[in-house]
């Protein structure tokens, strides 16, 4: 059925709240208020305050408590209101959630999900707009899921909730209102499987989250100019479907990576390194990256629009390879 990205995320949580009594939600203003972007609207009425838990403004507690409750068998889905706030509770993800299983010799499951909205474009400036998805990929023990469509959001979130590892689930705020066809009821997508959003033969664009939508639009314009781009969405950064990326590059011989993170130390650098190491012979042109510039996110709409990677920049990067 047709639903928006936000509705698909809510639907995934409803499916799991109904299926498993150990699943609960916790976060700031997720109850009566329905979440800062309305994603959890109505869930309090449907499931009650035991399952939909409003917390104080206490990010260390929100994430840290989920480590403890999941190690004791619950399945928390916690929300951090903006991805930027991960800086406040970085220890709880980096040193606790990620490492508990390993440090304890495999004797603890930390089956928690941390949902966070990413992305610029709403005039929220430097502390409420970042895309920091690369940051936590550097910490072994965490899974990073980053869907670009309503259907992917639902299928991947259900898989994330059922996973026995800590999963970070990145939602792009520009896509919350985006509609799409979403399967009803129990629907899962395996974690670690890329999806080719558009088949092509001339160049591979590896991209995720909102930039998939921009890349698809760019690909249509490129097609009109005779360049047939393949758009590959890894959907999860950790684990990364390397095979799918290498296979696509083997077919096209060219690679452009597009992400909204800043360029330096963005996850695109990792993908470029993998393809250089394991697929160098497939390449007949240098790898290109389209990313946000290495600046904080500005407030002024005039500056913010210049900050966000655009269709034009994607098209320009692709054309430079021909």
């Amino acid at each position, binding site marked *: 059925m047709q639903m928006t990205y936000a509705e698909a995320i809510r639907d995934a949580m409803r499916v799991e709240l109904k299926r498993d009594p150990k699943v609960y939600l916790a976060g700031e203003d997720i109850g009566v208020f329905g979440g800062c972007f309305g994603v959890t609207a109505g869930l309090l009425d449907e499931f009650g305050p035991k399952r939909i838990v409003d917390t104080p403004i206490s990010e260390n*507690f929100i994430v840290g408590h989920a480590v403890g*409750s999941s190690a004791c068998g619950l399945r928390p889905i916690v929300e951090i209101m903006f991805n930027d706030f991960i800086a406040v509770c970085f220890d709880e993800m980096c040193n606790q959630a990620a490492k508990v299983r*390993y440090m304890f010799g495999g004797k603890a499951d930390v089956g928690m999900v941390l949902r966070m909205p990413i992305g610029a474009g709403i005039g929220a400036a430097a502390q409420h707009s970042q895309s920091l998805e690369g940051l936590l990929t550097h910490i072994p023990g965490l899974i990073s899921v980053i869907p670009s469509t309503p259907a992917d959001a639902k299928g991947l979130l259900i898989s994330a909730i059922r996973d026995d590892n800590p999963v970070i689930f990145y939602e792009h705020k520009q896509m919350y209102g985006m509609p799409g066809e979403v399967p009803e009821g129990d629907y899962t997508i395996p974690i670690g499987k890329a999806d080719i959003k558009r088949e092509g033969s001339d160049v591979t664009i590896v991209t995720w989250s909102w930039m998939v939508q921009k890349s698809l639009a760019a690909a249509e314009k490129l097609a009109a100019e005779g360049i047939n781009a393949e758009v590959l969405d890894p959907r999860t950064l950790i684990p990364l479907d390397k095979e799918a990326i290498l296979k696509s590059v083997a077919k096209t011989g060219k690679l452009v990576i597009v992400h909204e993170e800043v360029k330096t130390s963005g996850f695109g650098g990792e993908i470029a390194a993998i393809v250089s190491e394991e697929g160098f012979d497939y390449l007949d042109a240098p790898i290109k990256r389209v990313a946000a510039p290495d600046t904080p996110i500005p407030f002024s709409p005039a500056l913010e629009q210049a900050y966000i990677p655009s269709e034009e920049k994607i098209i320009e990067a692709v054309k430079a390879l021909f």
Partner: protein
Amino acid sequence: MDIQKKQLLEFYQQMVTIRIFESRVCELFAAGQIPGFVHSSLGQEAIAAGVMACVEKDDKVGLHHRSHGEMIAKGADMNKMMAELFGKATGTCKGKGGSMHIADMDLGILGANGILGAGYAIATGAAFACQYNETKDIALCLFGDGQSNRGPFHESLNVAALWKLPIVFICENNGFGLSNPVKEHLATDCVSDRAAAYGIPGVTVDGNDVLAVYETTLEAVDRARKGNGPSLLEFTTWRWHGHFEGDPAVYKDAQEQEEWLKKDPIPRFAKQLLEQKNATQAELDEMQAKGEALVDAAVKFAEESPWPDVSELFTDVYDRQM
């Protein structure tokens, strides 16, 4: 309080066993047989023995970096513990955690923690799980005076009080946060003064008096189990050694150290047992010998255990190979 003779003798057995274990660990560390960091709890044995006598196997316990004593008193296998400190394959955590991250989920021990102050939210999350599951289990959260100054202390105590979670926060005030004496790191006289901020009971008690520790903890545990919410207990004691083994502790006042050594909780309790005819010297000697034998066996077990296979480096990062 009328405490059964069996329990009194158990306190003594626990205290001497911990003393022997910790002394041996220090010797082995100095001899280069135990790698890494070791934070000795010598002098703090009455807290471990008194507190852990108040909880059941299924109760959850969050520990800190100076927690070998609590592990032993909660019933952890000393052979596996010693092997863990050696980094051997047979260790509690397969040699992957070491002294600072030792844990035993089978005993509800949510781990020592190398990040001071990270344990509050995790233990509070465990208490949340106890309340959510409607069991009678409770959680304990132990920490030192130094780490009482971390931010997550506030977040976790506030939420625990707000939601009446079944948890007892226990500060082992051993006089120092590393080199920093309490009067130089704490704005109030006592850590327990802060209980007023959360509307929960707070009390400071002699931590070298095992009976006082036991009685105080029992009351707080009972309160938590009955659903009446958390308490903040503070047990004053003295850290005999430096912050870590190898720290010469030049910042300690020699006279103060001397005075505290005279308050050794073990001979003090032995005197009580003998005077009140709850034990004979022969019984005390027998318990000492039993402790020695247990620790000898643990050292032998650790020494004879194999190193982990290098393939173990890659296991337990996730629940499956990624």
